[in-house]
C-alpha cells in the first residue's frame, strides 16, 4: 500500500519536475556563476524536492515551489551566503518614483547580447534573480512573490530597481565601449 503511494507520487514528481530541468539549471548557473556549483545545486534541489514532495500540495504552484527550493539551497550554500546582499531602502509596498527614460538609454536596447549578459552577471544577486524570474522564466508577479517569499509590492519595487540598475550597467558598458573605440 505504502509502496504504491510512493510509486504514484514518484511518477507524478518525475513528470512535474523533469520538464523544469533546463530552466532550473540555467537559473542555478546564473546564481552561482559556476558550472560545478550549479550542477550540485540542481542536484540538491531535485533530491530535496523529491524528499519533500509529500508536503507539496498539489494544485499549488509547483514551479514556484521548485525555484524556492533551489533558491533556498543556494542561499544556504557558501557562495549564496556571500553573494546575497541586503538591498538598502527596499520598500514593502509603494513603487519607487518612476524613472524617466533619457534618449541615450533608448540605445541600450540595441546593446549586444553579450553586453547584457555581462551586466546581468555584475548585478547583485537579488536584482539578478528577480530579473531572471520575470524575463527569462516569465513568471507572473504572484509567482515571483511565492518563489522569493516576498509581498507583491516588494516584487514590483525590486523589479523596478533591478531594471534601473541593469540599465545603468549596460549604459556604462556602452559608454566604456564607445570610449574604447
Amino acid at each position, binding site marked *: 500500500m505504502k509502496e504504491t503511494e510512493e510509486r504514484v507520487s514518484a511518477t507524478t514528481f518525475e513528470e512535474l519536475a523533469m520538464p523544469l530541468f533546463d530552466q532550473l539549471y540555467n537559473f542555478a548557473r*546564473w546564481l552561482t556563476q559556476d558550472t560545478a556549483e550549479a550542477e550540485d545545486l540542481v542536484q540538491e534541489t531535485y533530491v530535496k524536492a523529491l524528499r519533500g514532495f509529500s508536503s507539496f500540495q498539489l494544485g499549488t504552484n509547483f514551479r514556484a515551489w521548485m525555484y524556492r527550493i533551489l533558491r533556498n539551497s543556494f542561499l544556504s550554500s557558501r557562495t549564496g551566503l556571500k553573494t546575497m546582499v541586503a538591498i538598502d531602502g527596499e520598500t514593502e509596498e509603494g513603487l519607487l518614483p518612476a524613472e524617466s527614460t533619457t534618449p541615450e538609454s533608448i540605445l541600450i536596447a540595441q546593446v549586444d547580447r553579450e553586453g547584457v549578459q555581462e551586466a546581468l552577471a555584475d548585478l547583485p544577486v537579488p536584482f539578478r534573480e528577480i530579473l531572471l524570474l520575470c524575463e527569462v522564466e516569465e513568471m507572473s508577479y504572484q509567482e515571483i512573490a511565492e518563489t522569493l517569499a516576498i509581498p507583491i509590492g516588494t516584487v514590483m519595487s525590486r523589479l523596478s530597481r533591478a531594471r534601473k540598475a541593469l540599465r545603468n550597467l549596460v549604459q556604462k558598458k556602452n559608454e566604456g565601449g564607445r570610449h574604447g573605440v
Partner: protein
Amino acid sequence: MACEQWRGKFDAYVDGELDPAEATSLGAHLRGCASCAADVLERAQMKRSVQMAGKRYRASPELRSRIAKSVAVKPRREAGWFWKILAVPALCVLILSVAVNLYVRHESERRQLVYSELADLHVSALASAAPVDVISTDRHTVKPWFQGKIPFSFNLPELQGSEFTLLGGRVTYLAQTPGAHLIYQVRKHEVSVFIFQDRGEETGGLPSGLAHALSFNEENWTQNGLRYFVVGDVGEADIEKLSKLLRDAH
C-alpha cells in the same frame, strides 16, 4: 491622465500585469504621446534583450541523465522478490489478526450484551412490585409451578443448612427464549438464578465462569442441556456457593 502618472505603470504594462481596462487606457495614451511610447518601447526592448541574454546556460547531458535517474520510478526488481516473500506471510498474519480481533471484539460485545440483559432482568424483577410470581421458599412448590410454562424442567437444591433462602420464581425471557428466573436471598441480598435451554447461539457461545457486568457478579455454566446464570450484587464467593448448590442439585 498625465504622463507622470502613467510612468509608474510602464513596467507592469510591459510585464502584462495591468488589468485589461487600465492596459487599454494606457494603450490609448501611448498612441497619442510620443515620449511615453518611446519609454515603453525601450522597456519592452530591454525586457526582450534580458530574456534572450538570460537563456544562456545549458546543462550537460550527464547531469540531466543523472538527475532523471535519481527521480525516476524505480522498478526495484532486485528487491521485489524479497519483499514479496516477506509480504505474503505478513499479509496473512495481518488478515488473521484483524479477523481474530474482530471476532474477539464481537464476542465480547455479544457477551456483554447478554450479561447486561441478565443484569437488567435481575434489577427489574427486584424493582417490581411483585418480584416473583410464585412465592415460596419450598423448592417443591416452585419447581412444579413452572410446569407447562417453560419447555423444560430443572432441579433445585436443598438449602437447608445454607445461608440461602429461596424467595420464589417467575417466567422470564432471554433472546425470545422462555426460561425460569429464581430469586434467592443471602444476608438481605437477592441473587437471581436464570435457567434457559442451551440453544447455542445466544447463550451457548458464552464462556462458563465468573464475570462482571454493571458491578454485578455473574457465573454461568451448562448442565444437562440447560444454561444456568447466577447474577447478584453479592460477592463472588456467595455466587460460587449458590452455583455449586445448583450444580449439585438433583
